[in-house]
Every structure is written in structure tokens, then in C-alpha cells.
């Protein structure tokens, strides 16, 4: 049969779960973006735990959202005990 090159990895509709389940570019869905105040962040990790797509990235002593996947739901901002995260309109960041 004619098709020789495939973009799928598996024979059937399997999906890898050994990585964080981030595949669709849901970052484009965002209308508000979380901004982390690094000074206020105490690295407690609550934002990472509550983030629905698990896309908070660990930096040296603070967290920040992976903007490729962050949908702007605002749960991290709501759960942050230090008030270190604020949601800003995405329009503020685009030219």
C-alpha cells in the first residue's frame, strides 16, 4: 500500500502518559496570563499542584507558567497563599 511515512508513533490510538500530558497548544486559548512575582513566591508548590494541565515550571526558587500550555484559568492565582500570582489580560502582552 502506498503510504510510506507516518507521523503517528504507534500502530493504534495509544498516547504516551510517561510525560506530562501536554500536547495541544492550549496556550493560544488564553485571554488572561498569570504573572508570578518572584519576590513574593515562597516556592511552596501549591500552584503547580492545583494547575489543571500541570504546566507550572520549576525554576530555582520560584514557579512560572509554561505559556505554551497555560490556558489562563486563574486557579494558580486563586490558590497562591502569598498572593504572588496576578492574572493580567493577554492583550497587555501582545503588540
Amino acid at each position: 500500500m502506498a503510504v510510506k511515512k507516518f507521523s503517528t508513533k504507534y500502530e493504534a490510538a495509544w498516547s504516551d502518559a510517561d510525560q506530562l500530558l501536554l500536547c495541544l497548544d492550549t496556550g493560544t486559548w488564553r485571554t488572561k496570563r498569570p504573572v508570578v512575582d518572584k519576590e513574593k513566591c515562597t516556592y511552596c508548590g501549591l500552584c503547580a499542584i492545583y494547575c489543571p494541565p500541570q504546566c507550572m515550571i520549576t525554576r530555582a526558587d520560584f514557579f512560572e507558567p509554561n505559556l505554551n500550555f497555560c490556558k489562563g484559568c486563574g486557579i494558580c492565582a486563586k490558590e497562591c497563599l502569598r498572593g504572588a500570582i496576578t492574572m493580567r489580560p493577554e492583550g497587555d502582552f501582545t503588540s
Partner: protein
Amino acid sequence: MKEIRFHGRGGQGAVLAARMLAIACVAEGKCVASFPMYGFERRGAPVVAFTRFDDKPIMEKTQIYNPDCLVVIDPGLLKLPTLFTGLNPNGTLILNSAKAFEKQPNENLKLAGVVNATQIAVEEVGRDVPNTCLLGAFAAVTGWVNLKSVQACLSEYFSGDILKKNLRCVERGYNEVKVTKWQ
């Protein structure tokens, strides 16, 4: 035949805007075809909607790859790399934004109408539902459909107070849209 492509996010009324335009066209005796294409059906997810109109029945059932006009309901979508793909030469853009264009965003774009539909909607309706305002702007900039036809089609979806507020949005979009032309 004219092909119009609407870009929005779930919840902004892109699909409804495309449909209302179709109804307005039919009221003027044209033939229409309008449909959406969703990825995931949820608020915030990108939505594309297509509307075609012509004097004779429309046969093609494909998505629109060579739009004559783009209607962009969310300014953030200007970042989309494929937004202007296939835009016909002498293309038109109707955009919901607070800022006008500084430079021509695409060489095929010759006419742009920009209106702060979000602000108008929030002022008139109390919510960020920019679609009806943009339809008024569309009518003003393209001239492909009359303001009256756009206003008339609203009563298929709204009544009472909400209808009045959306009619004001349409009118304000029609009157307040800022037009930019390029060679």
C-alpha cells in the same frame, strides 16, 4: 460569490455572528451557506466560522481558504500565524480592537475596519459580547449588506431589552468603525 471567515474564541459569538450575517444576506434575496469549525467545543478555544453569499445557490461545502474578508473577534488572534493565509488580494479585515493598525499587517489586506467592540458591548450590554457590534462595522466597511438587514436579523435571536442593547451595538459599530486603506 463572497467568502467571509470569522475568527473568535468559544463564547464570543463568532458562530452566531456568521449565522446572523447569513440571515441578513437572505433577507436581501441572496443565497447563503454558513458553518463553524470547532476544535474542542469550550469557552476560550479557537473557533472559525465561514459564511458565503452569492446571487445563485452555493454548492461548495468546504471550509474557506481564500476569504475576501476576515472578521476577527479577539485581537489576540492576530498572533495566529495562519490568520491571513489565503486572503484574497484586495482583502478586507474587520477587527475588534482598541488600537488601530500602525502598519499593513499583510500585503493582501487593502481595507481594514477597526472598532473597540468589546468596549461598546460592555457599555451597551454589560458583557464582552463583541459580535453584534462587529456586524455593524462589517456592513459599514464592506457595503456588502445593508445596516437595516443586519438590524432586522437580530430579532431572530434577541427580544425586549437585550434586543435594544444589541441594536445599539450594531449601530455604534456601523458609525464608530475606523477605516484604514492601503494600496
